């Protein structure tokens, strides 16, 4: 069996493995310089696993020769990305202004985590909305 894997896919898988190993390292050794072990571990392992799975999915699609996305999908993704940018940009601007006006001090990680989640959810919602519309 011959495996036709691209250099870019190999790099993505290796980078994913490095992220997962880094997450496991943080979990096992709990280094002093890591303030939130669970947050860092979850982020690193989650990102690594996601990167590996996405790479394998793209590899399977390419090898099978089955067309799974085309110009319409790219157009939908383009619109969803732009709307997501608008939502997160406005939200971040609002948050920045509120925190500045009221001089509220918040820990960075939960705020970034919330913005991260809103970005993902916003993109998925807009993507499916445009997919139904177009």
């Amino acid at each position: 069996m011959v495996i036709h894997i691209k250099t870019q896919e190999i790099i993505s898988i290796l980078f994913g493995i490095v992220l997962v190993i880094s997450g496991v390292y943080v979990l096992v050794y709990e280094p002093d310089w890591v303030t939130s072990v669970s947050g860092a571990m979850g982020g690193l392992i989650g990102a690594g696993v996601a990167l590996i799975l996405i790479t394998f999915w793209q590899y399977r699609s390419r090898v099978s020769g089955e067309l799974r996305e085309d110009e319409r999908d790219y157009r939908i993704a383009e619109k969803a990305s732009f709307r997501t940018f608008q939502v997160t940009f406005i939200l971040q601007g609002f948050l920045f202004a509120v925190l500045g006006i009221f001089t509220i001090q918040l820990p960075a990680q939960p705020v970034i985590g919330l913005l991260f989640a809103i970005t993902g959810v916003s993109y998925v919602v807009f993507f499916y909305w445009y997919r139904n519309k177009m």
Partner: protein
Amino acid sequence: MENSLKVWRAKRDITQENLASSVGVTRQTINAIERGKYDPSLELAFRLAGFFECTIEDIFLYKGE
């Protein structure tokens, strides 16, 4: 933009799936074009016209504002 893609497809008696694979897009895209929900790129319009051996204007009708 209006189009008569469904008519052309019926004339040739081919499925959306077959047309989609012939012009290099997904079946969902052909379906969206036929329902008038998606306007194809100029390149895809040319590929469709080439497939049916007609001009773009034979398939697509631009209705200005």
